[in-house]
């Protein structure tokens, strides 16, 4: 399904933090004007599309979760979450190839600063689209008096990137035009895939967060 690119509104602070600025340091005039320029114009470079589906959780044994059609997810963290859920939403989304092609073009012409800023804008746009889809799934779940968990992607916690294939299998061939490379990376690169647990209000799944007890204190995805 296509999304409207004007609905994907990234914020400046998020982009600045992507390219390394903390809260306490105001970027230089040059960087400010570059970021502002790109933020004003990036909508023409993105073509957001997404796909999602709902699946029953057939069984959970240890770190293995069966979601039908011989699709087995493997992760202790995800298994602990899904033990409290009734169904899961599986999703994939992308902002398309165009922005990425532009990043490559800039880098090939030694415009690495511009390439880095535009790449950060692409990451920011993909994240915003992911939040947009997350909200959509939440609204559907809430309408059925169910709650949703945070979203989890292969590569988070103990859920290996190689499990990307299971997520794509679960989407029954409709993965928003994204395909997996031999090394199971998504193409276009600015894409997000993952799952959201859906369950009854009394199971408190919306607050399920494995981060506080995790030993990886430096993890960039720590929430």
């Amino acid at each position, binding site marked *: 399904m296509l999304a409207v690119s004007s609905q994907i509104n990234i914020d400046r602070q998020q982009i600045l933090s992507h*390219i*390394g*600025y903390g809260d306490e*340091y105001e*970027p*230089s*005039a*040059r*960087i*400010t*004007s*570059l970021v502002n320029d790109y933020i004003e114009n990036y909508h023409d470079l993105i073509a957001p599309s997404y796909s999602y589906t709902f699946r029953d959780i057939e069984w959970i044994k240890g770190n293995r979760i069966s979601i039908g059609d011989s699709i087995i997810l493997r992760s202790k963290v995800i298994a602990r979450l899904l033990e409290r859920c009734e169904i899961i939403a599986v999703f994939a989304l992308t902002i398309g190839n165009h922005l990425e092609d532009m990043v*490559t073009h800039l*880098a*090939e012409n*030694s*415009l*690495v*600063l511009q*390439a*880095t*800023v535009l*790449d950060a804008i692409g990451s920011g746009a993909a994240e915003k689209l992911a939040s947009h889809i997350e909200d959509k799934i939440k609204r559907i779940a809430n309408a059925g008096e169910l709650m949703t968990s945070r979203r989890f992607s292969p590569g988070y916690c103990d859920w290996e*990137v*190689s499990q990307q294939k299971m997520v794509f299998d679960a989407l029954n061939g409709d993965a928003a035009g994204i395909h997996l*490379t*031999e*090394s*199971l*990376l998504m*193409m276009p*690169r600015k894409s997000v895939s993952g799952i959201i647990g859906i369950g009854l209000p009394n199971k408190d799944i919306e607050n399920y967060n494995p981060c506080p007890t995790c030993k990886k204190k430096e993890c960039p995805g720590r929430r």
Partner: protein
Amino acid sequence: MPEDIIDLIRESVIQGRVTKDDEGLDEDMVGQPGMSELIEEALISGVDAQDIINQGLTAAMKIVGKRFEAEEYYIPDMLASAEAVGVAMEILEPELTRSGVKPKGKIIIATVKGDLHDIGKNIVSILLRGAGYIVKDLGNDIETKDIVKAVKKEKPEFLGLSALLTSTMVNMEDTIKALTESGLRDKVKIVIGGAPVSEEYAESIGADGYGADGFQAVAVVEALNSGTTGNK
């Protein structure tokens, strides 16, 4: 005065300005000559290209490196400076060839097979160019055999390998093995970098060096070039 223009070139690197249309680190710099205008002017005035590099570009990048280390500069500030140096080098290259000045060395750089991440590699490329090396960037997701082929053809002094994933960093080791099998390993110094790798990993796969960030990668190449370090 040549010193004045070299001062301005140094300042242009620090400000990260390529042309007169660019803003700088400080505000309201649009309209003042940027790097490309200053280099052209310096060459017309007869300033020696080697002096421009040593006293202008290299000296300025040292200041930028220190500011980056002290966290006064962030990655984009550093990139803006490196970009200004890259533009200067492009204009200076024909002049250097004419006057018989040899580049410091040639480097082939690539993100290994299966890995599509290239921002880190691009940063290292531009910093190496700024430091006076000829860089041939093969791109990302590069087959091991193509890296070997490029080393055979281009005969670089250095090879830089990058990976962002634990699943693809193993291809760095494969590349080193393939170079050994082709009899090319001793002809090139190999430096690796990327989030999942470390100095220990570099050592374990038989690389010559490891750079934790762009400036470190340049420092390791410089040290290997002068024969002062390397873990091999």
